């Protein structure tokens, strides 16, 4: 019991410390590519610290749900992080079917964020909420399709096993399936975390934003919670993707940890490169992008079926 508590706290420590760093690398990469020096990779920490010190202003229209949403969102992603293994740090919570808990806890966070946006009673937030609801339907499809492929390959439905020790064998047995799964999961990572071809985290043109426009009315601690939740969500998705792409396991704990951290940094780099080289899609093209990722995941499923 005490050791479980210890592992849970350790896991949260990694997530809480690592997520802002992951978010900090991306703008730096973008800045370097465009020939600027850019902000420090530790900038997100400063931003969060600043927000945590601020008071907030609430709208007359809002209810208690507006205040509850950031808390629920952050708590949900913290719970999801307990199901995801971080290389040598095994997931403290793992059981048959824990992937469903991952998907539905993220959905819970999304539900509260959407209704908090609708709570403000203004069109901008409603716009963001509507888009978030729509795009997440499509990315949920891809996510579950990939879960199916991974479950078939690992012959298990626990996340720790699905992205665990069986991955090297699966690469030999059904490499193309895993490649397609990884590709479509990368698209889900971009879409669910509002990265560039889908959403632009930097712009402040309200008409084209999704996530940023939903949290327009939040401020202070609430906004810090929201940003933290978004960062942790991205960190989690990356931590699911990295073991699939870099399945090498050496006997040495430190080497394994280095591979994992390198993979995470590499993924942040990749996101940065994608963001620097691609323009944002027109809003009515985003659905095609997401449906293509679903098609990719579906072909992965077919290949996995064929190879088994």
């Amino acid at each position, binding site marked *: 019991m005490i050791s479980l508590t210890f592992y849970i706290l350790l896991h949260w420590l990694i997530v809480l410390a690592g997520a802002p760093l992951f978010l900090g690398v991306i703008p730096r990469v973008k800045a370097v590519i465009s020939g600027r020096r850019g902000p420090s990779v530790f900038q997100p920490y400063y931003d969060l610290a600043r927000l945590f010190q601020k008071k907030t202003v609430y709208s007359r229209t809002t209810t208690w749900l507006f205040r509850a949403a950031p808390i629920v969102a952050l708590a949900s992603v913290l719970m999801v992080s307990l199901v995801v293994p971080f290389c040598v740090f095994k997931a403290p*919570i793992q059981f048959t079917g824990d992937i469903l808990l991952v998907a*539905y806890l993220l959905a819970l966070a999304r539900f509260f964020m959407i*209704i908090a946006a609708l*709570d403000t009673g203004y069109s901008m937030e409603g716009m963001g909420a*509507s888009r978030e609801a729509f795009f997440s339907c499509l990315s949920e499809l891809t996510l579950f399709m990939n879960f199916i492929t991974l*479950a078939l390959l690992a012959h298990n*439905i626990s996340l720790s096993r699905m992205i665990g020790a069986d991955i090297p064998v699966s690469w030999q047995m059904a490499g193309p399936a895993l490649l397609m799964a990884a590709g479509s999961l990368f698209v889900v990572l971009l879409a669910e975390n509002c990265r560039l071809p889908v959403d632009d985290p930097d712009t402040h043109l309200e008409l084209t934003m999704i996530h940023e426009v939903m949290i327009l009315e939040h401020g202070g601690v609430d906004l810090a919670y929201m940003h933290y939740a978004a960062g942790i969500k991205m960190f989690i998705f990356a931590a699911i993707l990295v073991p699939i792409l870099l399945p090498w396991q050496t006997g040495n704990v430190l080497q394994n940890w280095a591979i994992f951290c390198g993979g995470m940094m590499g993924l942040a780099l990749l996101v940065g490169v994608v963001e620097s080289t691609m323009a944002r899609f027109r809003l009515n093209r985003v659905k095609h992008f997401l449906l293509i990722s679903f098609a990719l995941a579906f072909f992965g499923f077919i290949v996995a079926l064929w190879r088994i």
Partner: protein
Amino acid sequence: MEIIFSKIWQVPFGALSLRLDPLSVLFLTAITILFFCAGIYSMGYLRPYQGKKPLVWHVFCYLFLAMMFGVVVTANNVILFLSAWELMSIATYFLIIFHDETPSVRRAGFLYLMATHCGTFCLFLMFFLMAHTAGSMNFDVMAHASFSPVVAGTIFSLALIGFGVKAGFLPFHIWLPHAHPAAPSHISAVLSGVAIKTGIYGICRVLWIMGVLPEWCGYALLLIGVVSGLMGVLYALGQHELKKLLAYHSIENIGIIAIGLGIGMLGRTYHLAFVSALGFAGALLHVLNHALFKGLLFLGAGSVIQKTHTGDLDRLGGLAKIMPYTSVLFLVGALSICGLPLFNGFISEFVIFYGLFQGLLTLPLQGVFSCGVGIVSLALMGALALACFAKVYGTIFLGKPRRTGDSALFQEKERNRALSPVLREATSKWMIVAMAVLAGLCAWIGLAPRNAVRLTFAGGEYLSRGVLMKEDFEKLMAPLSMIIGTVFIFMAVIAVLVLVRKVLLGKGSMPIQDTWACGFAQVSPKFQYTSSSFARPIVELMKKILMFSRQGGKVVGEFPVQAHMISAVKDASEEGMFRPLYIRFIRLSRKLDERRNKYTQMYLMYIFLFLIFLLIWKLR
């Protein structure tokens, strides 16, 4: 495992034979709870109609209906079952047409009556075939008979149509979205919570009687589940009318139940007792859960309608401020129906998902593929339901009132600010108590599912007709108890985060201002996203299937004045299938009508010809 109670009954082929087995116990539980709560609710809800409507007749029909539900799910004899079934349908009709001064209500009631009788026709054929093959009218004798694949397939198809009309499978669901909004809210709750479940009960009973069914039956039921579920939730997204939207959600949930039953049948066909039990148990648990949360949502909708006299989502808004209790209870219902953790919807969806994944790993190839389709569509249904209920909750309870007339309600609230919340809400306490009981049960199954799961797992085991070990139940309970543990940690985390927030914000109240709205000064409630605009991206993507139509809304001229826009989603099976059929039928009967009026002699000749036919047939 089962108790049979028999008495002699002076009806040909009939026997007063009642049975109590895990299946009927489960349905009886759902019926009892929901009838009790809806009854309490109606004490507040019907108060305005005192002296204006024949309430005694209404109450009689209500209690009679409760009794007939009880008989339907416990009958052990075909004649008894069919009699109770018919009486149940008729009692329901009288309850639906409570507001019979409105033409649309009368039409909806008639549509219901027509639909249910068409279904019963198929049931007559089905039971005839069953009794003929088995040589008995009693279910327990039938269960021992063996059916040839062709007969079994025919019986199953007839059951799918006959019970499917009641349950609301696509495309036989068309009566549902008309009858639910027409009925008073406590009746809608009963209709959606248990009346359509009698269709599911019928299918379960047939599955139990027919131990061996052809392989395609499982796939067919799975496919029906997927189609009903997806179309149900898509139609729901396109609705503006609260109760109609909830009715379409019932179709979605029936689809989820059918997916569970389908995977259970597949497991049974391939002799995988655990998969089968999981599928059936998940479906049965969802029957119970749906009765609880859909009952809650319909009762909540009734409170909203009683308060504002409209169910049009695009005219409501901001009700959380004047109806604090209803808004919280409705939120519980919304979270449950979306299958989100903490509440009961997640538990039953988890069991069905578990069954599907288990099937994915153990079934032969075609089964694997179907399970994959089932998983993906269940996930999509979940995401769409979330979008839909975020829309419903956001537009009814949050934001600002969209109608100018509602500001009177809000001013009244401002005046009553000094009063306690109960008096401010001014909803009858009976109504709140009834909803609170249902919400409490939703949370109870969500946080301590062991008892409910045991009840339904027994039902699943009973239906799967397989041999299951005690470990199998524990194999299902192990992940569930992990989930509950996680949920409790989750609540602890929330408590910690609330504390942190409190400490960081410090003492003193936060400044309250108008919505910032990007600095825009004159924000009107009309700027808010409506339910139609919220759902538009999804509806637009599916506009071919949903028969989405849009009129007006064009901005004309340099200084546009006023513009109107109407958008609607039409039901394809109603517009494309039943309406043409109905028109053709009317035309045919007109033609026959013309022929009829001409000669009396023709009738004599018809009788004569029929006599000759009978003679030839008998003499041969």
